[in-house]
């Protein structure tokens, strides 16, 4: 993986990068960027407009729920209108955030959140940046809008005295770059109540009348990326103010544990802040509680026996809350009335499986964090006795938020695991790290690598086999297993060089043997919400995707394909040298003299970097199993590198655009001739036919004008596609197809090194 790239390798990158400052990072991938509106009401059909990048020939808009379907919007002539779809949301479509994506020339795009709810929806169509232009909102409705830079959006509603309403602005949780500020004001715009921390305004009008809602970005940013959904809802009684659904953070990959009931078996009972008020519980337990009020401490007391080991898991941050739970377990001993507390365990965060990028000067890890501030740890009982367990929120000292709930589980070991996966990212120049969203849209002949990270539960440390199902025709995947005790592996997904256009919804999963039973767990895929091109200036925002769409395109091939000469299992004995002949197809022109190659996959990560000369059609990879110390067993590995090649974006569009331009030119010429003729005719027409002739001449002039406009458009398009199709230095990760290797036990050492799996 990239993290272990040698400094030499990075130096090379820097060297390669230096003379070509304008080089492109990663081959273009289809990305869906905005969807307007960003959601709809169940049982309705809405017209949706999309924008994106590297999108052409968009043929379909798809959703992660089969209850949401879309058809292209047709013009009066029955021709599909570009980037517009009519989306039908079935009455039984599940409420919540779904993923939308489009199918395009390059395949299936990255996802964009699409919310389905029960409230009526509107789209703001006119600017509403002042009190006077406030858009009137009906109660129990959602408005879809985009923020204007350096502006405040105004809404108004009629409030009834004593009738409680909740104003909630969804933005961060639906892929928006907006950090929403909500202000509730009187009819003159004088502020009454404010929320700037992504929360909700819970408001009971003191009098009947018009009230205003102001929305802006925290730093008054705006533009297409700053979209939001503003919901105004009436709330009955004292129920918590309703919130709109949001996507899941990467940390949520480890919650809930398999088989957990949706709600806790018991709940905390206040007061339980002090030792004397400790809530008596028996283990195991499953308790729901809240970090409320400020500086809340929840203390539980139980008895336990020597030799017992208990596992503690707390979920709060993984529920989408801004909390940092902490658990302290203490033993209670008494001498007379005097109580002594002895610390048994302090349980802090769930460590991430991989070191996360520090967003510093250079790349030092993936920009994804599967760890969490939540708790997952254990304590061991050394003596029979009474024990206390405290739960507190390390962020909760001054924060009074009743919605900051947690779930505390204390259980006997239930070994298990949770997985999440993401595309391998790369860096180029120091401090210029791109964190791009990478949909699984493959080019024929390409292979991509995904890191698969595991959070292990309750002492499970066995190996995990990784696999994928449901791949479209022409696409295959091989998991490079997560070895015993390790925290990540890889998934290599490859498209055959002769693959045809295809797409489908795949599943990624991991399989392990736990307590002699086979356990299979799903592996959700994480991606960036936005293609962040410089993570120093913009904070990358990753999230879990709803599912795993995969596509392959034959519109253009991969710049390079590295495969083994034969599709077979390569065998060798431990300690031997294994030579694997590679076939390399160079389709684009590469920069430099060679590419530096390393390896992914347990047993081979320490492979010494080797060079493959540019344009070499074959190369022999030499694996020194003695140096690698690869123990006997069956392995899958892959080679990877980084290369800069000349890439032409959609050159096929150039002749088409050229033809269109030519046609437009001819049309203009024809129209001009016709107009000239008709004008002359009109000038010479007899008086009784003068009116008709004038009219015909006018009409021809109009048509000529239209044709000229079309020609100008065609000219612009021609320039755009020609520019895009001109060769650009493009750096990308190169991954070989997976290589299967079987290492047999060396005969001499057979006695003392039994084959290990």
């Amino acid at each position, binding site marked *: 993986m990239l993290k272990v790239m040698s400094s030499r390798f990075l130096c090379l990158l820097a060297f390669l990068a230096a003379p070509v400052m304008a080089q492109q990072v990663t081959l273009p991938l289809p990305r869906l960027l905005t969807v307007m509106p960003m959601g709809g009401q169940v049982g309705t059909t809405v017209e949706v407009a999309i924008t994106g990048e590297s999108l052409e020939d968009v043929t379909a808009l798809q959703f992660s729920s089969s209850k949401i379907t879309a058809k292209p919007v047709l013009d009066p002539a029955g021709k599909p209108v570009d980037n517009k779809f009519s989306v039908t949301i079935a009455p039984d479509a599940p409420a919540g955030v779904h993923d939308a994506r489009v199918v395009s020339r390059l395949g299936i795009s990255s996802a964009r959140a699409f919310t389905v709810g029960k409230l009526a929806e509107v789209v703001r169509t006119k600017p509403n940046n002042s009190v006077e232009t406030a858009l009137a909102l009906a109660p129990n409705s959602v408005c879809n809008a985009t923020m204007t830079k*350096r502006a*405040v959006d105004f809404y108004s509603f009629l409030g009834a005295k004593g009738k409680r309403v909740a104003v909630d602005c969804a933005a961060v949780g639906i892929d928006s770059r907006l950090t929403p500020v909500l202000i509730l004001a009187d009819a003159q715009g004088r502020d009454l109540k*404010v929320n700037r921390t992504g929360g909700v305004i819970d408001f009971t009008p003191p009098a009947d009348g018009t009230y205003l809602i102001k929305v802006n970005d*925290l730093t*008054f940013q705006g533009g297409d990326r700053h979209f939001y959904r503003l919901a105004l809802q009436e709330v009955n009684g004292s129920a918590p103010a309703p919130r709109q659904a949001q996507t899941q953070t990467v940390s949520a990959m480890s919650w809930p544990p398999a088989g957990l009931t949706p709600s806790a078996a018991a709940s905390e009972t206040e007061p339980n802040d002090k030792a004397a008020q400790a809530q008596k519980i028996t283990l195991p337990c499953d308790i729901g509680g809240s970090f409320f009020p400020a500086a809340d401490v929840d203390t539980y007391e139980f008895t336990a026996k020597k030799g017992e080991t208990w596992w503690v898991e707390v979920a709060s941050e993984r529920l989408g809350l*801004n909390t940092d739970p902490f658990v302290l377990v203490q033993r209670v001993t008494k001498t007379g009335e005097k109580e002594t507390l002895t610390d048994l365990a302090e349980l802090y965060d769930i460590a991430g499986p991989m070191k996360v990028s520090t967003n510093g000067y250079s790349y030092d890890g993936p920009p994804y964090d599967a760890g969490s501030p939540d708790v997952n740890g254990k304590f061991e009982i050394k003596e029979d006795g009474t024990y206390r367990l405290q739960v507190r929120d*390390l962020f909760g000292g*001054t*924060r009074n938020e009743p919605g900051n709930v947690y779930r505390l589980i204390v259980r006997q070991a239930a070994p298990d695991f949770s997985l999440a996966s993401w595309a391998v990212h790369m860096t180029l120049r120091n401090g210029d790290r791109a964190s791009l969203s990478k949909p699984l849209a493959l080019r024929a002949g390409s292979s991509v690598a995904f890191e698969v990270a595991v959070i292990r539960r309750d002492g499970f440390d066995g190996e995990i086999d990784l696999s994928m199902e449901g791949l479209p025709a022409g696409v295959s995947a091989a998991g490079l297993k997560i070895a015993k005790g390790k925290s990540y592996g890889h998934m290599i997904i490859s498209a055959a060089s002769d693959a045809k256009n295809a797409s489908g919804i795949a599943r990624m999963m991991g399989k392990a043997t736990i307590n002699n039973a086979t356990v299979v767990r799903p592996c959700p895929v994480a991606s960036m919400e936005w293609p962040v091109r410089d993570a*120093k200036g913009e904070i990358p925002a990753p999230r879990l995707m709803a599912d795993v769409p995969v596509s392959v395109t034959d519109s253009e091939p991969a710049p390079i394909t590295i495969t083994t000469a034969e599709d077979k299992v390569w065998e060798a004995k431990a300690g031997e040298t294994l030579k694997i002949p590679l076939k390399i197809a160079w389709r684009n022109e590469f920069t430099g003299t060679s590419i530096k190659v390393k390896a992914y996959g347990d047993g081979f990560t320490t492979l010494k970097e080797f060079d493959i000369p540019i344009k070499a059609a074959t190369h022999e990879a030499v694996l020194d199993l003695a140096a690698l110390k690869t123990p006997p067993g069956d392995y899958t590995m892959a080679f990877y590198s980084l290369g800069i090649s000349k890439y032409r974006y959609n050159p096929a569009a150039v002749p088409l655009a050229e033809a269109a331009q030519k046609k437009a030119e001819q049309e203009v010429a024809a129209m001009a001739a016709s107009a000239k003729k008709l004008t002359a005719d009109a000038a010479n027409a007899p008086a009784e036919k003068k009116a008709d002739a004038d009219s015909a001449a006018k009409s021809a002039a109009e048509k000529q004008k239209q044709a000229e406009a079309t020609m100008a458009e065609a000219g612009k398009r021609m320039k755009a596609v020609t520019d895009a199709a001109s060769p650009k230095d493009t750096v990308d990760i190169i991954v070989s197809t997976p290589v299967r290797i079987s290492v047999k036990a060396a005969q001499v050492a057979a006695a003392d090194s039994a084959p290990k799996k």
Partner: protein
Amino acid sequence: MMRWKSRFIANALAAWMLTLAAAPVGAADTPRPLTFVNDIVPILTKTDCNSGGCHAKAGTGQRGFKLSLLGFEPQEDYEHIVKEGKGRRVFPPAPEQSLLVLKAASIVPHGGGKKVDPKSENYQTLVRWIREGMVYGSDKDARLIAIDVEPKRLSMRVKTTQQLKVTAKYSDGSSRDVTHMALYEPNDKSMAEAGEEGLVRTLDIPGNVAIMVRYSGLVSVFSVSIPLGAPVDHLPAAKNFVDQFVFANLKQIGVPPSPVCDDSTFLRRVSLDIAGRLPTLEETRAFFASPDPDKRDKAIESLLSSPDYADYFANKWTALLKNKRDEAADITANFAFHAWMRDSLLANTSYDQIVRQILAATGTIVANPAVAWYKRVKEPNQQLEDVAQLFLGVRMQCAQCHHHPFERWSQHDYYSLSAFFSQVGRKPTAIAGEDLIFHKRGVAQTENKKTRLPVKPAALGQPTLDIPPDEDPRLQLAGWMSSKSNPFFAKALVNRYWKHFFKRGLIEPEDDIRDSNPATNPELLDALAKHFADNNFDLKSVVRVITQSRTYQLSAMPNEHNAVDRQNFSHYYPRRMQAEVLLDAIDQVTGAKSDYADLPPGTRAISLPDNSYNRASPFLKVFGRPEGASVCECERVQSSSLAQSLHLMNAADVKAKLAASNGRAESLARAEMPEPKRIRDLYLAAFSREPDAEEIRIGETFVVKPRTDAKGKPLDTQRAKRQGYEDLLWAIINTKEFLYNH
């Protein structure tokens, strides 16, 4: 004791002892041997040897000879004088030849000049002490336990003198007159002077002044009340306790107050002070027209409930809380923090809660903007110093390195306060340079950098706390601060706010509250603090009680007696508008709009979230908008300068505002109303008052006169008139009446 190494010195010592035995003088007069602590350190202090500028210069001392500041570390000083450099500074066989004496008397060249005269008692004492063998002193010696100044309190007429007597009291019951050895310092040098020998002389300003008297680390105060002695026959009817205390003081010192100001002055004054803006034309007209006897109180309420109040005071607080833009990426943190402060004020969150949320902030900035304070103020020492100065009015900086010279705070007190911040945990976030803050479990303690011993938390003047490792010590600190019995918290705030409304704090500087710097009206300060605490630290209640008082509403025009008054609030002290307020006021009067980066058009200068806008606005810079670098209000420059005058008269941005399209000059020139009415509107907008007949006449004559362009070509009537109004506006914004809140 002393390490005499050479035989020569041993012999010399023997000879000297003989000399001593033979010496009849002194021994008989003063049987008590002189000690370093009781007799020499006071000399070093009195003669400035151990001042920060001389041998107590931090780190280095002076030319290799280092003393502790004001003698707070006598043991170290003794080592340096007697033992350092092989004892080269003292020569007991011939005490007058000791380097210490030769330098002090400038007999050999001394950078500090002549500090003791060979004929003086101090000289004799030094010589005798060396002759006596340079006794340090022992535990059995009498310890200095108190100093008494007599008289303690006195009423003195202007330009009179009073000799003080200072007596040092020792643990053995003895006492000494140390008048000539004590140090004297008035807290307001414009009111009184104090001579080296304790002679106090009042100047010509009436009021209260305190002379701080210091001797050997102890501090006492001589309080002087300087009456003017004028008859105080007419006092406005007191509206609340503020007036009772202020008027009682005025009566006592004989300074008659000015009358209560008129409605127009009041409305303009209170709008500027609470909302940081001029009253609108509509507000002014409505206020004038209202016959309601409570209309002043109602205007105060209306201003207090407006977002302008929150904007204006957030501007004040965020600068003090160092909301400073160092890098472009700070924008999110700064906007969030500023907005959080503004929202807290808008919601009228109690002051103790606001402080608690800053002090004990945890989490990330976007989720809990108060955390941004920990981004700006990173080190525990800086944290305690800022908290003490800003929220308690106590300057602890000195006590980091030595005992506070004017205060009871020691290094131990300093580190005890620092220990509250010892468990602030930090974790990096995805945003470069921004940590998230959490309470790190553990026993709160910090190391005293002097003694290298661990120190547990203790609030100022409070016992040491044993805080369980699970509790965030900062919450305990916040709890102590906001307890009603806290001697600093409420006082510091009301004094700060008093200054906001009256130009001068009851204690000056407003954040230097100490026994040796008493308030000019201590009863009033106590009453205000009590009012604030009793109202659960409701900030608006402080503003309300101040602005409702007749004292606040007194005219700025002095009467025949009180012009000289600078601190008794017998009349309103006019102040130049602050940079932001002035810029907004010019915008408001000219009808122009300033434009600020990243903020919606129409944003006012008082709503700017951080200091970054000072760079782009020469106006804000010239008029002293603070940079958020310090917790001191003094960072805001309120003095006047030539640059300010020139800017108002000539700067391009001001000129552009005068000529703003759709601005006031243009619309007045176009307005369909008679000239006098237009001039009236202009005066109402700028001064919140009607012009008098003469002003109308002058204005009208000026506006309607024919004008020519730059080439001398006559302008058409409309353009001439517009230019006339631009010029009139220019004249108005350059008047003191406009520039000042009065």
